[in-house]
């Protein structure tokens, strides 16, 4: 029976190391897909910040992380707004602005799993059109 304690301790330690290794690897793969860290975020103007519009490029990246063909919308930034004191939005803020948690209903039958939050589907197309109209992009590039 004591050998069980030894074997299980080894197993527990291995599981811990595997957890660390997989955690690092998983985070790296998310970063490569642009889902976790530093997604491309265009600069906001103060007017855009007031209306809190979503970003088309980020929304697109979130929806199609594996696509190789990417559309980049270049928004002209006026010098005044570039120098303005309005702070740049953090990637996390942009992510959460794009994915707003919905009101949840707890069903007693779902006791087995923690009623975890889920997000409404991204209104990607709608926001893209809205933002595209409001910002009037001058140039659309296709990057392979």
């Amino acid at each position, binding site marked *: *029976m*004591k050998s*069980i*304690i030894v*074997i*299980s*301790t080894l*197993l*527990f330690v*291995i*599981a*811990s190391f*595997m*957890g*660390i290794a*997989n*955690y690092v690897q*998983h985070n790296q793969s*998310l970063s490569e897909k642009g*889902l976790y860290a530093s997604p491309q975020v265009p600069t906001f103007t103060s007017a855009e910040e007031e209306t809190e519009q979503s970003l088309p490029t980020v929304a697109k990246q979130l929806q199609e992380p594996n696509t190789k063909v990417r559309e980049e919308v270049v928004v002209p930034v006026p010098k005044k707004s570039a120098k303005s004191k309005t702070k740049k939005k953090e990637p996390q803020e942009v992510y959460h602005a794009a994915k707003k*948690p919905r009101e*949840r209903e*707890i069903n*007693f*039958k*779902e*006791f*087995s*799993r*923690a*009623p*975890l*939050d*889920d997000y409404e589907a991204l209104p990607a197309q709608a926001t893209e059109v809205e933002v595209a109209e409001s910002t009037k992009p001058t140039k659309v590039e296709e990057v392979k």
Partner: protein
Amino acid sequence: MFSSTQQFFKSYFVQSLFWIPIIFFSGLLVFNTLPYFTFSKEYRFIQERILLFQLPFYSFCFYTHIAAGSFCIVSALLQFSSTILKSRKKIHVWSGRIYVLVVLLIGAPTGMFMAFFAKGSNMERGLFMVMALIWFYSTARGLQTVLEKNILAHKQWMMRSYAMAMTAVTFRIYHILFYYFGWSHLENYEISLWISVVGNIVFTEVILFFRDKKYIQSFTS
């Protein structure tokens, strides 16, 4: 005679108040875990972690963990029955052996692995890791003490182990209760998690402290 009968019913009533909700919620938890074994990805819990479920080892750990957890919760209920312990000791022994093996070889290691990907901040991930560690350690000590024929210490360590297994149940109870307080989801999740883990530990230690005079010795024996 009357006094002893009254005492009997009083203790029986108090015990029922404690055990009936535990049995009910444990059964409900296990029952609602069963659909996961269709291996469908449509469940919200899985949908939320769909990228993680692309890792084969994470999927393996998840399914083995919920199977092991369900088994532990059910089998542990048998272990606390004094009737089974007195009249059917073999059931207690074999159920206990399987519980210990499942916790040490499956439940705690897979729990430790999954803790790295748990929802919430690093504090919550750390809490899950500590939980897995306590679950593992208390079960191992429970096994060690029973091999040394130290029954009192064995009882105490196994109660600690069961307290950790029951966090799955108490977490869901708190989570549903706090939902009606109108707290935001993440706030509710984090508070429920901390209260269920810390609350179960404190509750068990309080029971042990008042039940056993040799409480302190249980840590050293």
